[in-house]
Structures are given as structure tokens and as C-alpha cells.
């Protein structure tokens, strides 16, 4: 654990993940992403983006997401301090519960999207929150938090922790065989910790694929042993960054830096659910005035899904037309395996955002027919609390 300064790595070679050698030993193709060499896909019959994507939808995939930033924010008033920077109701977030949130700039632009978990130990006088932020933005996020969190709040970068995501319909079965009992204690968006081989694992039931699954924070020196233990099961295979992107696209989940940026706001990004009820009433987060007026009056543009006819993919930057008029642009897209067709996400003027609206997308001089589609494209299969259990609470 250390309090890291901003490393000047922009001009340097990509950094190595804790599992770099583990990926290379499995023949992964490594590509630079977010300042790291990352596995985009693995070799063999069950390797490649389509096979890895399908495996994750049917079994359990293990993703190395150690490039993401893991932070602790603690001290008296930590919840209120986070509420000054994000629109979540962290004062009401119970220990062991996770919220998706947005780091906002003063205009309501999105600096990053992140997961916030209340990890306050039982009986502790001061609250502690665990944040997982995007890899490409983590240094800027740390700088932003340093600048705007009050002095009495401690920010710790857990840069000696690796992060593994175990995702898919068999993820709970796989976790149960390696860390018995942990899965049964959690539903979607809950977190706990467990001892495993003498170290503490942070276990969150969350992910970025639309499937049930877990994100496992593990000391980097123990990451290879945990990955080996999981991949020794016949229901788990390592999955690369390529399938991670196609899975999240089908799940309708935005990718920071592409589908959401400082030029987009939570309302146009269709992420209004991240603005908690109390915060809507009270405001007090960056850009609140602009965001709340958009919530009330509607935004001029909206992030939508697009189902594209044919097989040709439309990617980031492709112009979207209604008749002869450009009404928006694609922010991410591609041919996705479970749908078996090209899909895209993008922003269009609000008049053209209703599901079923027929639009065209220009790709290399051709006009592709597309229809505004509800998201997700593939139904989420999160493990939510059952009604019976809810009554017990």
C-alpha cells in the first residue's frame, strides 16, 4: 500500500501488469492499453474474441483488470466529501454495498465513471470507501481527488493490489470451489472480504459483461496463484480485452473516453440512475444546476443503442443521419458475437432517440440502415436479491 505520485509514464514503454508473465506464458497477444501491456486475446481453439466472448456468456471468464485504479477514501466525513464530487447518496450506502457513480467536473461533464463500495469495518469510528476507477483516467482521478477532498480525508492508492474479474453464468460455481461460501453471501452490487491462502481478498458481486460475476481484489504477489486456482477449473478460461469490449457493448454499458467524456453529462449519457433521489432534491454535486435542469427539462442529445442491418460494422466517429441531416455520431460499435450482428452506441438529437427510429450511418461512403434499439442488446443476468430474501431483511 502506498501513496503514489503521478508517474510520468506518457512517453515510456507500457507498464507491466502483475500478471504480465502469466498472460505471456499462455500465449496471449499483448497490446498497449491505458498505459499497460494488456492481453487482447488468447490463442487456441477456444481463444480469439468470438470464442472468448461466447465462453463468458456460457461458462465463466477470468479477466485481468489490474490496470484499473483501486483507491481508499477514509476519514471522518468521507461520505459527505465524496458527495461533494459525485451525485451518489453515499451517506445512505451501507457497509458491504456498492454504487455505480460518476466523477463530475464543475459543468457536470463526466471525468470518470466508477464503483464506490462502503468497506467500513464493523464498529469503526470513521467511514472507509473503496473506489475502482478506469485505468486510463486513474492518475487524473487521483489528482482531482487530492485537489478537492478535504485535508482530513485520506486517499490511498492500492497500487500493490491486482484486480481480477470472474464473469459468466458459472462464475458463482467457480468462486465457490476456490473460495467456499463467499458467493452465497452476496447479491449483485454487494461486497465482502475473505481470507484465502493467508491473504485478504476483496470480493464484489459486480462486473462489466452483463453477466453474474465477481471482481476480486488480491495482493499482486498472490494474483497468479488465484488466477491459476480459478483457471484450473474446467468452467473457467482467461478472457482478453477484446471480448471484454464486445461483452460490455452488448450489455449496453458505456466505455469511458468513448461513450462518456467530459463533453457528455449524466442526463444525455442516459445515466440518470447514478443521481440518487436525495441528491436530485438537494443538489450539492459538481454541475448540479445544469444536470438537474436537464433532468427536469430534458437533454438535447441522448446516448442510444443502434441495431445495424447487414454485417458491416460502424465504429467510433461514424456519422448518424436522419434523411440527409446528420443528427449524431457513433461513439463505439462493432460486430458482436451473441447478437450475431453489428451494433453501436452513439449520441443523437433527442427527437431521433426513440426506440424503433430508423436512421442511417455513414461508413466508408456507404449508408448503413440502422434502428434505434433499447439497451442492453443482451439481457442482463445479474444475481439480484430474491423477493423471499428481501422480506427477511
Amino acid at each position, binding site marked *: 500500500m502506498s501513496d503514489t505520485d503521478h508517474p510520468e509514464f506518457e512517453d515510456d514503454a507500457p507498464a507491466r501488469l502483475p500478471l504480465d508473465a502469466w498472460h505471456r506464458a499462455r500465449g496471449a497477444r499483448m497490446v498497449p492499453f491505458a498505459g499497460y501491456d494488456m492481453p487482447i486475446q488468447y490463442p487456441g481453439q477456444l481463444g480469439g474474441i468470438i470464442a472468448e466472448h461466447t465462453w463468458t456468456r456460457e461458462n465463466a471468464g477470468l479477466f485481468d483488470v489490474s490496470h484499473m485504479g483501486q483507491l481508499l477514501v477514509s476519514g471522518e466525513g468521507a461520505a459527505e466529501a465524496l458527495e461533494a464530487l459525485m451525485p451518489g447518496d453515499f451517506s445512505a450506502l451501507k457497509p458491504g454495498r456498492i454504487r455505480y457513480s460518476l466523477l463530475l467536473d464543475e459543468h457536470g461533464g463526466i471525468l470518470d465513471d466508477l464503483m464506490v463500495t462502503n468497506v467500513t469495518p464493523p464498529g469503526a469510528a470513521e467511514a472507509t470507501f473503496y473506489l475502482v476507477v478506469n485505468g486510463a483516467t486513474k492518475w487524473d482521478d487521483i489528482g482531482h481527488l487530492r485537489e478537492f477532498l478535504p485535508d482530513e480525508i485520506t486517499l490511498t492508492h492500492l497500487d500493490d493490489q491486482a484486480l481480477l474479474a470472474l464473469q459468466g453464468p458459472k462464475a458463482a460455481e467457480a468462486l465457490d470451489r476456490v473460495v467456499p461460501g463467499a458467493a452465497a453471501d452476496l447479491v449483485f452490487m454487494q461486497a465482502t472480504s475473505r481470507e484465502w491462502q493467508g491473504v485478504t481478498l476483496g470480493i464484489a458481486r459486480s462486473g462489466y459483461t452483463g453477466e453474474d460475476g465477481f471482481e476480486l481484489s488480491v495482493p499482486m504477489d498472490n494474483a497468479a496463484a488465484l488466477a491459476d486456482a480459478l483457471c484450473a477449473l474446467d468452467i473457467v478460461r482467461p478472457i482478453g480485452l477484446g471480448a471484454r469490449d464486445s461483452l460490455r457493448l452488448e450489455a449496453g454499458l458505456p466505455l469511458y473516453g468513448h461513450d462518456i467524456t467530459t463533453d457528455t453529462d449524466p442526463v444525455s449519457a442516459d445515466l440518470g440512475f447514478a443521481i440518487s433521489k436525495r441528491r436530485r432534491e438537494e443538489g450539492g454535486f459538481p454541475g448540479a444546476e445544469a444536470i438537474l435542469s436537464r433532468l427536469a427539462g430534458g437533454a438535447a442529445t441522448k446516448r442510444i443503442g443502434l441495431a445495424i442491418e447487414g454485417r458491416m460494422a460502424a465504429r467510433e466517429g461514424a456519422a448518424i443521419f436522419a434523411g440527409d441531416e446528420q443528427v449524431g455520431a457513433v461513439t463505439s460499435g462493432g*460486430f458482436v458475437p451473441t447478437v450475431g450482428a453489428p451494433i453501436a452506441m452513439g449520441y443523437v438529437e433527442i427527437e431521433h432517440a426513440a426506440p424503433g427510429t430508423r436512421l442511417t450511418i455513414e461508413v466508408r461512403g456507404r449508408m448503413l440502415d440502422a434502428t434505434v434499439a433499447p439497451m442492453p442488446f443482451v439481457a442482463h443476468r445479474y444475481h439480484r436479491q430474491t423477493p423471499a430474501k428481501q422480506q427477511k431483511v
Partner: protein
Amino acid sequence: MTTYFTKDHEWIAVDGPIGTVGITNYAQEQLGDITFVELPGEGTSVGKGDSVSVVDSVKAASDVYTPVSGEVREVNSALTDEPELVNTRPESDGWLFKVLLSDASELDGLMDEAGYKAYVDSL
């Protein structure tokens, strides 16, 4: 029939005045799962080095450059329904288009199989 290779990882198998063009096994490995192939129109005149086809993979769209000038005589229509042929049989059934060569001397600047293999090994 003689097969030549380019540094952009296309191959051209020349049989008399007609050359059959595709991408190499190395290229398809780099591209990954191919989901769509955009083919040139039959009868199109093309100049050496022009982008005349696009191979779309799950990852990205990649241009295919014609190794020679001439006229497109035929395209591989099997790729419309089975673009994955470019992955499974890149240097046979996964061919892209046939071109009527307008200048056979353009072949002189291309690599033979041994030269291409050495080039790929150097990458």
C-alpha cells in the same frame, strides 16, 4: 502459377493474365475473427497500392491494397455469407478478388514465398 507477396500481407497468385488476390495467414492471425469483407465492384479499374477491399474483424476494419494495377474481373461471393473463410483458408478458399493485370512488370517488386517468410520472421 506463381504466388507473390506484399509487405502489407497480401498475396497474389498469377495464372497468365489473371492474378487472384487475398490476405496471408499472418494477416488473418493479426486481424482475428473476421466478420465482414467489403469487396470491390466487378469491372472496377484499380491502381497498384489502391485500397480496394476492407476486411472487418471484431477488432477493427483493415484496408486491403491491390498488389497490381488492372481491372477487377471477379470477386469471391462466398465471403458474403462466410467471411470466416478468410480466417480458416486465407490462402485458398478465402481469396478476395481476381484482377486482370495491366502491367505484369509490377510483379517484379513483390516478394516470393521465401522472401515473405523471412520478412514475417523479422517482424
